[in-house]
Each structure stands twice: as structure tokens, then as C-alpha cells.
């Protein structure tokens, strides 16, 4: 019996040892054959060269303008940008976003914190609630800009004054997203959250900017959460400039809003938020916000008027 057991173990052992030995070698040729490894390739054009010269080589920022569904939402009807729109959009971004920051802080700051990847989409991204998404950002790394097929600045054929709305919206998006990156690196002071504390709501979609102003918020979206509030403040102040921001504050009418904010309270809330933003930029990033604001606004004005 004992011998039998030993034999059994032995046989079993042999069986295992003998089973399925394979020789697996991975050779370089196989790896080279994997399609698309290292990214898509195509014959470069003048446009690709422009992007390389102006974004990749200068700021280490990639700009993807060719359709790649995997970068975008899978359930949305979207189209890629027109090739002739890519340079106008990216050039305008350089003027009204990159240049002002670099002139205030230096290239190192910008390269360190900038999103490294832009994805361009020709159309807007329509949501089920009827709203449209014009820009998204992911993890401070990637920014998707929509509606680029309709982007027109002064001097481009067919430019009309109302095109400035889209231009401003695009800068609004990028300054908004860059604001997120900044506060995700160093959070703004907690007092900011307390200013509008009781009024943050997920129902912001059903309000409009003017109503939001009367409650002490710069835009309707700012009512979504303190983070959005903070970056909407940054974005609107930069895009509209000091005069534009003052105008919004001063246009808050007398009386009390539906949510119970008086004119004086609403104005004070916006001014308090402004102060926190300005102080935050100075203390955390050593940036003179008003100077940045003046430069950004001047660049935008040059593209519009």
C-alpha cells in the first residue's frame, strides 16, 4: 500500500513535469507588427508641421485634430474639425491664454501646469437635457474643445460681430479648465466656499446668468459647486476684463432675488470672491491677477474688434 502511494505520487509528478512545456519567445519583429502601437501615423502635412513647431516643440502640448473616437464620448454625435480651422483656433489660444500667463510668470510655470493634450472637435456636444458642452477637461491633462468649425476671428472671411460670442466661449472654456488645474494643485482658501454656501445647487441648468448674478454668482454654472464657482470667477474676470466684470456687478438690479439675496449682498459676494481670487493668484502663484486680466482681455479684444 505504501509503495503504491509512492508510485502514485511519482507517476503524478512525472505527469505534471511532462505536461505542456512550451517555448515562448517574443521577438522584436512581433512587437513591430502590432498595428497602431505608438499612435496612429499618417503622411504629415503643413498643418502637422505647424502644430509640431508651435505646440509640441514649444510647450510639449499635443494637439489632436484628426478623428479618434476613443478620445471622445461614445454616445454623442460629433464630427471632426475642418483642417482649415485648426490653426486659427490654436493660434488664438496662444494669444489669449498662453501668452498672457507666460508673460506674467514665465514659461516654466506654464509648461509645468498646462494640460498636455488638446483634442479638437468640429461640432458641439449635445446633452440629453438640451444643453451643449463646449469644452471638457480631464485630470488636468486633457482638454477637449468643441464647435471649432464655427470659430471665426476678426479678419477671417465672413466674420460678424456675433461670432465673438463663440470666441469668448472658447476662451472661457480654456481659462475655466486651467483654473481647475490651478486649484487642484493648491486649493483656494475655505472662506471662498462659505460666501455662496447655501445657494449651490445641481439645478443650476434651470437658472440663467442674470438670475445667478442677482444671487451673487458670476454665471449660472458657478452655482453648481464651489470649485466651479471659483473657476467661473477666474474665467469670466479674465475673458470680460476688469471693466466687463465691473459692469456685470453694477448691473445687478435693486431689490431681492427669488432666493432671498439683496442687491447689496449679491454685489458684496461677487466683490469678496474677486478679492479671494486676486489674493490666491498672488499668494499661491505670485501672479498679479489684474495685470494678467488686462493682457488677456487686450488679446481677446484684438481678436474681436
Amino acid at each position, binding site marked *: 500500500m505504501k509503495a503504491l502511494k509512492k508510485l502514485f505520487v511519482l507517476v503524478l509528478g512525472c505527469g505534471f513535469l511532462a505536461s505542456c512545456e512550451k517555448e515562448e519567445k517574443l521577438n522584436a519583429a512581433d512587437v513591430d507588427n502590432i498595428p497602431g502601437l505608438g499612435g496612429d501615423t499618417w503622411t504629415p502635412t503643413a498643418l502637422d508641421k505647424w502644430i509640431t513647431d508651435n505646440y509640441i516643440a514649444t510647450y510639449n502640448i499635443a494637439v489632436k485634430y484628426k478623428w479618434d473616437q476613443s478620445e471622445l464620448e461614445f454616445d454623442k454625435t460629433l464630427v471632426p474639425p475642418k483642417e482649415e480651422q485648426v490653426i486659427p483656433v490654436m493660434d488664438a489660444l496662444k494669444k489669449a491664454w498662453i501668452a498672457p500667463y507666460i508673460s506674467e510668470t514665465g514659461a516654466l510655470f506654464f509648461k509645468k501646469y498646462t494640460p498636455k493634450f488638446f483634442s479638437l472637435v468640429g461640432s*458641439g456636444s449635445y446633452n440629453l437635457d438640451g444643453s451643449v458642452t463646449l469644452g471638457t477637461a480631464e485630470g488636468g491633462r486633457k482638454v477637449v474643445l468643441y464647435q471649432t468649425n464655427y470659430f471665426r476671428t476678426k479678419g477671417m472671411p465672413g466674420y460678424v460681430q456675433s461670432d465673438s460670442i463663440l470666441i469668448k466661449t472658447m476662451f472661457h472654456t480654456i481659462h475655466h479648465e486651467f483654473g481647475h488645474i490651478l486649484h487642484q494643485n493648491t486649493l483656494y482658501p475655505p472662506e471662498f466656499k462659505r460666501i455662496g454656501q447655501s445657494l449651490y445647487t445641481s439645478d443650476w441648468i434651470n437658472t440663467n446668468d442674470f438670475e445667478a448674478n442677482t444671487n451673487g454668482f458670476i454665471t449660472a454654472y458657478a452655482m453648481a459647486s464651489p470649485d466651479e464657482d471659483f473657476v467661473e470667477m477666474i474665467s469670466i474676470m479674465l475673458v470680460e476684463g476688469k471693466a466687463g466684470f465691473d459692469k456685470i456687478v453694477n448691473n445687478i438690479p435693486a431689490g431681492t432675488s427669488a432666493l432671498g439675496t439683496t442687491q447689496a449682498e449679491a454685489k458684496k459676494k461677487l466683490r469678496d470672491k474677486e478679492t479671494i481670487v486676486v489674493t490666491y493668484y498672488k499668494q499661491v502663484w505670485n501672479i498679479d491677477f489684474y495685470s494678467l486680466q488686462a493682457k488677456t482681455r487686450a488679446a481677446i479684444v484684438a481678436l474681436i474688434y
Partner: protein
Amino acid sequence: MKGRIFICIICVAIGFSSCKKDDAPAFEQSADERLNESLTSYQNKLVTADNGWKAFIYPKGGGTFFFYFKFTAQNRVKMYSTFDSLSAVTPRESSYRLKALQQPSLIFDTYSYVHALADPNENIIVNAKINGGPVGVGLQSDFEFYFDSTYTDSITLIGRFNGTRAVLIRATKQEADSYDNKDLGKGFLLQNLTKYLNYFKRVTIGGVNYEINVNQDERTITFSWLEGGNLRTFTTAFYYSGTGVSLVNSLVNGAQTITGFSNLTWDPATTTLGFTVNGASTTVVGSGQPLKVDLGGPLRWWQFAVDNGNDYWISFDGIHKDGIDDYFNFKTTVPKYQYMHFWPRYNVAGSTWYDIFGIIYVNAAGTGLIQYGTAPVPTFTTDGRITFTYLGSLGTSPNGATTTKMTALTNSVRSIITQPNGFYLIQTGPQSYDMVSALDGKTWISWVF
């Protein structure tokens, strides 16, 4: 007993140890190698067609669109498209690439005429009705296709997002030259049919008198003809092609088969559209009467609104007269104009029931709709017309300085609808009718419910 167990164990052990070691793959090459081979062969097929490819794209949202593609080895593609009269004659270059997605796929990766069909249109911040499909959706077309099947001279592609079918057919030198020669634009002369003053358009093809009705937006055409005194109709989608206008389904009428119109001509001086069918040229002639009057049309139209909650018919474009849409400029004259309306059996005055013809606009406060118009009494004639006699005016005129203008406007509307010859009612859909003047067929209103 012990021996038997022992044998069993040995057997099992042998069973375990007997893995087949020869695991040579079923294919000689790896999956990656084969995939790359497919991609290369597809790309070569596209590029080596010296005269490019004719293509049909059938979006999920409807329609048939003719394209011409010329691919280069440098990821560029030149194309024409019968999406509109401009894209048919203006070459556009954009980029494409082949990529191993779930299947080997062809991606038109920057905006081109292909994308115009898939464009979601815009109505926020910018207003862009690119293709007429719903905002956020478009015509549900595709620009990312996988290769479904390939033959020597054709390739079938299926869209990866909407399942749009696309068929590529190798073009000849002659065809390629004709597209460069702007031949794809010629079919669009058909759009001049809207310039005819008469509602009814007739054309004689091979001895048969056809009435044709073209829906330019949906690209469908309806042929009507008489067969032993009975009206026959045939509706088909059409597309603009290198030869002119091609019918998706051919019209077969006895010995006659119509597949499309070629050699289209347009003479603006005489408002005459001409074309060739089956080798014979013919011209479209306007007519004041339908080929056969729909005797029950007027009452059916009138009764439909009464039966469905006694609601009203509306027409956004108002009155079309003498070739002009919105002849009385409702859209620009009436503040906050919504639409023209016809409300049958609106109310009773004494013992006389009356209808309302008028306009509906938003009140000054923006909180409700106001109607203003003429109240006539209808008569249905035995020969299929509806006539109206004037009873009075009704509703609230937009106030202020526009009142006089409004009165003039209402008088104009009255003069049209009380015109003694009355109207034919042509049913154009389950809930749509065209009301056409029986006087000369040059005035009409398109009603929808």
C-alpha cells in the same frame, strides 16, 4: 481491487501527461501580421483605383447621396458630393486613414462632405442647419466605416456608429473627367421646379402624361398618371448623379421604364425645365388643374380637423402666390408671428357655422397666443372644390401702429380665400394637405395638422 485502482490511476496520470506539444497556430502568420496585411491591401485597393471611386452613402436618417472619392497614398482624399449644388461641383480635399479598430476601418478623419451628412447641426451659440436633421443627431450618417466586403470593382462599407451603408464602385476615366467638369451639378437644375408659377407640373414621357411632384427636402419624387380614368401614383427617392437625376426605384408603367432624367436644362426666360428620358427630350409644363381631381379631398381635410378635437390646421409659410413664398409677408409684418391657421367649424353665428382663416401670434406679454382673421362659411362643390363666402372678421388685431397694416393684410387674405373658384385640396401626407387655388393653380397654402 487494489490493482484496478492502480491501473486507473496510471491511466489518469498518462492522460494528464499527454498534452499535445505541437501548438503550431492555425495560420502561418500572427494575427497582427494578418491585420497589417489587410490594412495594407485595403489601402492599396483604394489608392490604386486610378480614376477614383464613385460612392453611394445611405444615412440611417434617410436619403441617398452620391459621392466621388480619389484617394492618395499620402492619406489625402479629394471628393465631390451631391449633398448640395455647391459640393457637387467644388472639389474638397481632406484626410483619411485606415486603422485597426474592432475591424479594419476606413476613417475620414477631418471634416469633409462625408461629415456634412453626419453633422449634428447646431442651435446653441451658433445656428447651423447643415443637413436638416435633428439638432444633436443630424442625418445619422457615418464617417468611420469598417470594410464589410470587397470585390475587384466594388467595396461595401458599414458605418461604425450609425450603421450607415456605403458602397464604393470603381469609376472610369470618363466618369472622373465628367465630375471634374462639374457634371454632378447638372441634376440640381431640378430644383428650379419650385420656380414654376403653377402648383401642378406635367411632363409627357413616351406618350404618357405624368404629373410630377418633387419633395426637394426629402429628395423624393411622385409620378401620377391616368390609367383607364383611374389615377395611379408612384413615389420614389431620387439622388443627383453624374447623369442628372437618378431614381432609387425605377418607375415601371406597362412597357415603359423610367430610371431617371438626364441632360437637364433650365431656361429662366421661359421658366422651362427640360430633360431627356429614355433617349427622348421633354419639358415640364405648368398646369392650373390636377390630372384628376380628388373629389373627396376638401371635405376630408375639413373633417379631419373637426374630428381630431376640432383643432386647427397650420401653415408656417402662409400664402404662396405667383412664385413667392409668404406672399403677404406675415413673417415680417406681424409682430411675434407664429403661423397661419385654418380652424374649421369654429363657432356658430345664429344658425350659421363658420370657419376661421387667420394668423396666430404671441401676445405682447409673451404669455399666450392670439388669433386674428377672417371668418368665412365653406361650401363643398360636387366637382371637388371648397369655396368660401365671407361672414365677418374675428379676433384681436395686433395693437398700435400696425393695426392699419393688419387690416389691409386681413383684407388681402380675404380676397384670396373668397375667390369664387375656390380650392382643390391635395393630400401630401397622413396629416398634411396643400390647398391650391382652382382659378389658376398659382396660389396655394401648405397645411399641416
